């Protein structure tokens, strides 16, 4: 028996049901299946099995219909069974969101888990995925989440996601843009504020920001870039290849 600890001691029954344990951990009351990102599970009670997406899809055809992203299939698992599943993400704040016949686009590295009633698709903005339908999902953020309404411009690293409004366009800082047009150069050493490029939101909806510009490396980044090289002709691909080799040897 531990004494002297001024904290709640949980068991399988007293752990919250589909609610936050604290700001940094969330307890899912699992009865069926959830999609969870690899490494998001920190503890569980009950008979819960975590299996790789491709392994699970081999005997559950609906997985392919719900998880429409070959790019990220390796980063996700299916949690199935009954019990309490506790989700955490390196001390980042965790929030749960309910979608009601809606859609929300979120940075892939911040999405931790979602109900299988939701459909996941890749956003046309690289590194983001869109959830469509009705259901619950969990996302992490560095510091509390801030909700703002368009028109709004967000730092790409602080942007967590957006709901209901059109996908953003890119806005370049006026001061930087006018200088780069007059100078005719793109790289201007020492002339950058670190805020030249922002995502510009218009229309009606909600934009989600995290409290800092700290981001996680996206494991699919190289694959995203590689996918786009399919647009190149063989000759252009060769030129790019030479440039990349030269860079790797610098």
């Amino acid at each position, binding site marked *: 028996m531990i004494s002297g600890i001024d904290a709640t001691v949980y068991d399988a029954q007293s752990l919250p049901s589909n609610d936050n344990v604290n700001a940094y951990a969330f307890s899912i009351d699992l009865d069926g299946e959830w999609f969870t990102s690899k490494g998001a599970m920190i503890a569980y009670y009950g008979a819960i099995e975590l299996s790789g997406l491709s392994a699970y899809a081999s005997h559950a055809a609906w997985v392919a219909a719900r998880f429409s992203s070959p790019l990220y299939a390796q980063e996700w698992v299916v949690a199935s069974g009954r019990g309490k599943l506790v989700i955490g993400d390196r001390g980042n704040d965790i929030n749960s969101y309910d979608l009601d016949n809606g859609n929300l686009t979120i940075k892939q590295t911040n999405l931790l888990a979602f109900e299988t009633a939701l459909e996941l698709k890749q956003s046309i903005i690289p590194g983001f995925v869109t959830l469509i339908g009705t259901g619950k999902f969990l996302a992490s953020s*560095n*510091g*509390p989440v*801030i909700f*703002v309404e368009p*028109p*709004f*411009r*967000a*730092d790409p690293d*602080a*942007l967590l996601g957006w709901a209901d409004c059109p996908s953003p366009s890119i806005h370049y*800082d*006026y*001061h*930087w843009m006018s200088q780069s047009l007059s100078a005719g150069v793109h790289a201007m050493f*020492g*002339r*950058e*504020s*670190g*805020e*030249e490029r*922002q995502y510009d939101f218009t229309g009606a909806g909600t*934009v989600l*920001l*995290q*409290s*800092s*510009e*700290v981001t996680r490396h996206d494991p699919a980044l190289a694959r995203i870039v590689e996918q786009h090289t399919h647009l190149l002709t063989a000759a252009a691909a060769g030129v790019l290849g030479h440039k990349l080799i030269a860079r790797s040897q610098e």
Partner: protein
Amino acid sequence: MAFESVNSKVVRAQISQQGAVLARRGAMLGYDGNVSFRPLAHAPGAGMITGESNKMMASEGSGSVLYGYRGLYVTVIVLTGDSLSVEADRILAHDASLQTSVEMIAQGGVRSAVRGAMTGQGLFTTRISGHGSVAVLSHGGTFPLQLSGQTVGVDPQAYVGHSGALQVDLKSSVGMRHLVGRGSGEAFQLHVSGHGTVYVQASEEKF
């Protein structure tokens, strides 16, 4: 216009034609309205000597801007004609109407040099004065200690800054005990005395 705390780690500043805001480069999270971010050039060499040369940018135009940095806690300090001494690294943003100057900690001597080394701030600190808001970064959040004549001891790593007529001295208690490894781990303390406010962070972690 005073900065508004959005949460413990983010502040919102109103930008107008009359009131620009200076901020750490790269600390803008988002904004509405028409705001432009211009990198600030400083006198060449000045920063090299003092080490007080944080890269700053000016936010100009009209709108409201959110600032935050690396998930650190942000404290808003409003100056009304008084001045605040704080390390340049800790300044997230401040009204452009405030004056800043780099000054030496205390007036010379070996003792101030030792103090600079112990607090990790070096010999120089930034003094901000005038009327306006300053957003200060800290690890774990800051709390103010009001002083009216008494003396308070502060861990050098937990010291954030101070305002008012305060005397800051480094006291060491290095003796035989510390040399043989039986010290308390608090061999150096800052002794702050006088009339004013000293800001302390809830952590001994530097960033």
